[in-house]
């Protein structure tokens, strides 16, 4: 430890494993450790912190990546598609309008079954122009065929960035993996982050040997040919199947990563949920606030619980229905809108999960934190109080409520 203003007395030559990093810098560090062959990026707030740090590492010779400074996010994703089709490990970084600009190429990447890793920082979509967090940007890419993992804090963003490479490249998956963290709340907040040593990351990831690639001269292929209508389902349905296989892969990679790091990551993360009477389901950093609220309510004798969803695509429907069975009321928290729909994205998926597995629990949908508006512990406590009332009375109108 050093004292501010003084030269360090003794610096250990061992690399530090516990460091203070913001979520953005933690992901940049993870990118360096995964040693991508190609990274193509166009900076956009709040993900810029990731790109600029990674670019600096490339410039300093800390990682031998071909960094392509493209002129737009559409080009960034296109360059990643080309690189991945050639058999390279390819990654990109984006947020908000940038991710929206990548949108059509995301569908190509997924359709071509290319294991590109997309590091995202959630930021609302315009208009009104606003650089702060909600989940509308990644929700816009919800149906693109990319996996989507959400992180609660810098540590989880770092862990997800490492695991994303393994998950994407798994032969049963071979799909782009988008992992995301809340803009500013996580990307720019410094926390303690426990790093996995470089050599352990290299061993964990292994070598990437694509079976199908343009530069494999032993087995030449044409990728992305035009197809006739008859073959449409033949290409699309295996990608759906792969997305479903990804549930097992996310779970098994999470277990393996747990053995390596001591941090076990599943598709969901329950908190004081087993014996809970009322529960909240959510994505991202607000889970941290919700934990504090749950603890406070528990001290008052209220059986509150939390279910954090880490894997939004694939959606762990059976796991979620099972975890919520028997609760007297559940609030599903959405940080994005689906204007004109009956409710909002996370709520709809939870609803379908419950219906598919014949679990009947009163659900209500809360929309919170749009455009980065803060969500305070008192507001979440209020949600739990309303859930207790719904549990007693069974009255859950209005179904969609706004914080």
């Amino acid at each position: 430890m050093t004292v501010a203003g003084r030269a360090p007395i003794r610096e250990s030559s061992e690399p530090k494993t516990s460091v203070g990093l913001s979520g953005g810098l933690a992901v940049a560090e993870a990118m360096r450790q995964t040693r991508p062959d190609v990274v193509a990026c166009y900076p956009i707030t709040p993900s810029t912190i990731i790109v600029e740090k990674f670019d600096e590492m490339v410039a300093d010779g800390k990682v031998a990546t071909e960094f392509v400074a493209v002129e737009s996010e559409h080009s960034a994703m296109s360059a990643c598609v080309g690189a991945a089709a050639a058999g390279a490990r390819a990654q990109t970084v984006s947020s908000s309008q940038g991710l929206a600009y990548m949108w059509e190429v995301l569908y190509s990447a997924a359709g071509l079954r290319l294991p590109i890793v997309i590091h995202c920082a959630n930021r609302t979509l315009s208009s009104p122009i606003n650089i702060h967090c909600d989940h509308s940007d990644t929700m816009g890419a919800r149906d693109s065929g990319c996996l989507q993992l959400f992180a609660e804090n810098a540590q989880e963003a770092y862990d997800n960035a490492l695991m994303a490479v393994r998950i994407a490249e798994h032969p049963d998956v071979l799909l782009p993996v988008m992992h995301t963290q809340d803009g500013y709340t996580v990307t720019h907040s410094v926390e303690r982050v426990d790093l996995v040593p470089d050599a352990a990351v290299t061993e964990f990831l292994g070598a990437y040997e694509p079976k199908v690639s343009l530069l494999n001269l032993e087995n030449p292929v044409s990728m992305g040919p035009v197809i006739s209508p008859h073959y449409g389902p033949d290409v699309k349905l295996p990608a759906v199947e792969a997305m479903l296989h990804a549930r097992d892969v996310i779970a098994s990679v999470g277990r393996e990563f747990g053995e390596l790091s001591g941090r076990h990551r599943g598709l969901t993360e329950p908190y004081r949920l087993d014996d809970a009477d009322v529960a909240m389901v959510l994505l991202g950093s607000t889970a941290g606030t919700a934990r504090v609220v749950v603890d406070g309510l528990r001290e008052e004798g209220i059986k509150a619980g939390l279910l954090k969803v880490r894997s939004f695509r694939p959606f762990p429907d059976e796991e979620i229905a099972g975890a919520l069975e028997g609760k007297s009321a559940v609030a599903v928290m959405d940080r994005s809108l689906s204007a004109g729909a009956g409710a909002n994205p996370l709520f709809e998926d939870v609803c379908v999960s419950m219906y598919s597995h014949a679990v009947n629990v009163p659900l209500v949908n809360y929309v919170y934190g749009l455009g980065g508006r803060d969500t305070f512990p008192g507001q979440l406590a209020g949600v739990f109080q309303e859930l207790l009332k719904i549990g007693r009375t069974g009255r859950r109108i209005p179904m969609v409520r706004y914080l």
Partner: protein
Amino acid sequence: MLQGGAIQSQGNSVERETGGWRVQRPVVDMEKCTHCMICWVFCPDGSILVDEMRFTGFDLVHCKGCGICAVECPAKCIDMEGEAALLEEGAITS
């Protein structure tokens, strides 16, 4: 087909049946045909059937009905006729 619609085999365009795109169909008057093979040279889809250097007809499974053969034929022995009407009359497509 491999993952993501990738194709590994070569020379497989014959499996792509493009005859269904046709709006007009080439119809030949064999009395006038001189077997000069100009149609064979110009056909972009390899749909001119040839036997022993003699024109024998059209591969209607693949002919898209572009009409280049009819335009290029020096003997003016190919006419383009409406596909729909021929189908209604029960004429076979291939």
